[in-house]
């Protein structure tokens, strides 16, 4: 390895030759401020347009200032990161950015989480000497995401996420110069675009230009309405991240406190999406087994691989991009949407509550869920199975609004019957988790043998595309896993070309799976946060007394009392869905 010696702020440092000044400085405790630069190290995601120019530093002998994020070190380089020249330039550049940014901090959804705000504080901007015209654009509200691009600072992170990482292509830099901005084609609404609502653009936006649609007010109103029974379900990934909003370390599990908080917020029943995840395994796992068995018997009609369908961003993605593969994914609804009808048609009916009087709220790490619960096929006479989907961030906001001191809450348990879940359901939050959970059940159902070691370590990890071959008692089962839609596209293209060797493929739209979802607390590019959440999820699984979905006693009871058998008629009606070709969609009417 070629090493290079240089000096930064008078301190000598020796680094590998292709290191940037930014990274070299970090090694010796010098944090050069950045704005457009963004990195999720463990997912190979990097945004380095060199555009904001906040990270400029002085390199002795160089004519102009150098952007630390995209300038490599060189032998005997002498770098100064805080000379008068640098400080003046850096502050002036920030003043310029602020001069084209609405001064709406007090009412901005991103206030407190805004990287631009933090930067202004950090650099001590106290007035704006350069003022003038501000670029303004139309506001755009979609079912999940709000674009207020007046606040866009053109860091291009969202564009990178949408195109390079997710290959969705909903956003692009458009126009030029002062009017340049990131937008969908023809600057139309996001709703007209192939946007999947994965929310990754929101999760990386440094400002309030991209935010989620906020449903917390609707939820507050429902809770205040005595005629409504309000039921809440919490997705597995939420419990591993919610604590971050209250200053707890990433990876702190707050399941019990979360339940307690929800109860104090006034929800009538605090249930768990994990229950529905177990249910998903029953249906999806059975479908896998069914297709597999038929395939092994030589049925040429059967479609393999089977693709998971719990992720609404992913569903949107293949509806837009791979309409010809619509019969390949499992028809099983996502856990959120399985929960809805079970709550309203089973639990509600048992209690004698009319579905109109039951409000189902979901707490999700996800923004696509906001869209998913509004899909027409998930409504009965206009009444949605799931009324509102809140993000982890919105829940934290609700808790704060209700004056609840989260950290001092006692741990409480979910309500029954829809609160009971297994370890298999918990790991739905991580990439590889759904397929692992499915395999735990499928193995036992297929082989009739007890699975001694429930952890399939070969399915875990953060590599973009993973594959493993599992031994189902002599039958090799090929599993493919992708997280991030760009990675999914690669697997899909193989399926399309008939080259796929897999029996089953799990796909999650977000990096890391739901733990890295668009509705989670902002990780600000720290992939360690995502790793800690993943670890917490596996800890939660390990601590569960039951770790296979088919062993969940309430699931067994649900089938006995209500559903009959997996893939049965009732299941088909309530728990399965179909897909729509959205590739023909056009921006213009």
């Amino acid at each position, binding site marked *: 390895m070629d090493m290079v010696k240089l000096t930064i702020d008078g301190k000598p440092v020796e680094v590998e030759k292709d290191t940037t000044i930014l990274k070299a400085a970090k090694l010796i405790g010098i944090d050069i401020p950045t704005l457009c630069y963004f990195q999720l190290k463990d997912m190979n995601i990097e945004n380095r347009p060199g555009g904001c120019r906040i990270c400029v530093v002085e390199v002795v002998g160089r004519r102009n200032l150098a952007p630390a994020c995209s300038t490599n070190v060189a032998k005997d380089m002498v770098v100064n990161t805080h000379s008068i020249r640098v400080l003046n330039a850096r502050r002036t550049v920030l003043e310029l950015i602020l001069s084209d940014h609405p001064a709406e901090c007090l009412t901005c959804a991103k206030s407190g989480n805004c990287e631009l705000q933090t930067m202004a504080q950090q650099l001590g901007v106290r007035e704006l000497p350069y003022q003038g015209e501000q670029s303004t654009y139309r506001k755009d509200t979609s079912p999940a995401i709000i674009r207020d691009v007046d606040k866009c600072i053109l860091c291009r992170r969202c564009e990178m996420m949408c195109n390079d990482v997710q290959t*969705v292509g909903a956003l692009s830099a458009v126009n030029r110069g002062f009017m340049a901005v990131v937008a969908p*084609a023809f600057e139309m609404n996001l709703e007209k675009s192939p946007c999947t609502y994965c929310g990754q653009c929101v999760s990386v936006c440094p400002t309030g230009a991209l935010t989620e649609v906020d449903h917390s007010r609707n939820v507050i109103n429902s809770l205040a309405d005595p005629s409504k029974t309000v039921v809440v379900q919490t997705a597995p990934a939420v419990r591993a991240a919610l604590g971050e909003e209250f200053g707890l370390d990433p990876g702190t599990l707050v399941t019990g406190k979360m339940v307690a908080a929800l109860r104090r917020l006034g929800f009538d029943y605090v249930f768990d999406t994990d229950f529905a995840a177990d249910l998903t395994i029953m249906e999806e796992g059975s479908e896998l087994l069914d297709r597999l068995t038929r395939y092994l018997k030589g049925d040429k009609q059967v479609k393999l691989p089977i693709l998971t369908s719990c992720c609404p961003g992913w569903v949107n993605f293949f509806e837009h991009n791979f309409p010809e593969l619509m019969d390949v994914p499992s028809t099983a609804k996502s856990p959120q949407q399985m929960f809805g009808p079970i709550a309203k048609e089973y639990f509600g009916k048992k209690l004698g509550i009319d579905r109109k009087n039951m409000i189902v709220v979901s707490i999700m790490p996800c923004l696509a869920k906001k869209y998913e619960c509004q899909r027409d096929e998930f409504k009965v006479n206009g009444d949605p199975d799931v009324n509102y989907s809140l993000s982890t961030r919105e829940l934290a906001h609700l808790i704060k609004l209700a004056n609840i001191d989260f950290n001092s809450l006692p741990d409480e348990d979910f309500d029954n019957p829809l609160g009971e879940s297994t370890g298999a359901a918990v790991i739905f939050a991580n990439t590889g988790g759904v397929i692992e959970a499915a395999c735990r059940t499928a193995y036992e159902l297929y082989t009739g043998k007890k699975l001694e070691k429930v952890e399939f370590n070969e399915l875990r990890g953060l590599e973009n595309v993973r594959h493993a071959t599992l031994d189902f008692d002599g039958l090799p089962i090929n599993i493919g896993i992708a997280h991030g839609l760009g990675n999914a596209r690669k697997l899909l293209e193989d399926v399309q070309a008939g080259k796929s060797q897999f029996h089953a493929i799990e796909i999650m739209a977000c990096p890391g799976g739901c733990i890295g979802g668009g509705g989670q607390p902002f990780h600000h590019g720290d992939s360690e946060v995502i790793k800690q959440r993943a670890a917490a999820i596996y800890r939660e699984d390990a601590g569960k007394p039951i770790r296979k979905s088919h062993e969940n006693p309430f699931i067994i009871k649900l089938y006995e009392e209500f559903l009959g058998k997996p893939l049965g008629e009732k299941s088909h009606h309530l728990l399965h869905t179909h897909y729509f070709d959205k590739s023909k969609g056009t921006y213009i009417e």
Partner: protein
Amino acid sequence: MAKIKLSEKKIEELKEVCKSFNNDKGELINVLHKAQSIFGYLPAELQEVIAKELNVSVAHVYGVVTFYSFFTMTPKGEHPISICLGTACYVRGAEKVLEEFKRVLKIQVGETSADGKFSLSCLRCVGACGLAPVVLVGEKVYGRVSPEGVKDIVAEYGN
């Protein structure tokens, strides 16, 4: 955005254009040039077809179209008038000529007259600095244009 509804024939023609560039997305700008020369402008529909043929996102195509000043999404007038605002023309009074065109045609830069006859745009240097200030009507170049001469130029095209 209203749909103009391209005829099947036009769409086929457009697809042929894309094909002639091997549907290579690297040729996007060449394709757009060709498309604009055929259709006169680049309406949204057309960009959607091109995006599909070249297998790129529509947003990408739009991003490229809006980056380059040569590309336009609005139909130009029957006689597009361009005033050169290059430096040589500027110092020889091109601004006054532009003002006069705006006054005579009662349109702003980037607009098309109500009867669709004239549209007004500015450009930077056609390289005929010796004739500054220079005005183009369609492909025809008018040199040494004075504000007084503006009316005559417009009159040539029957207005």
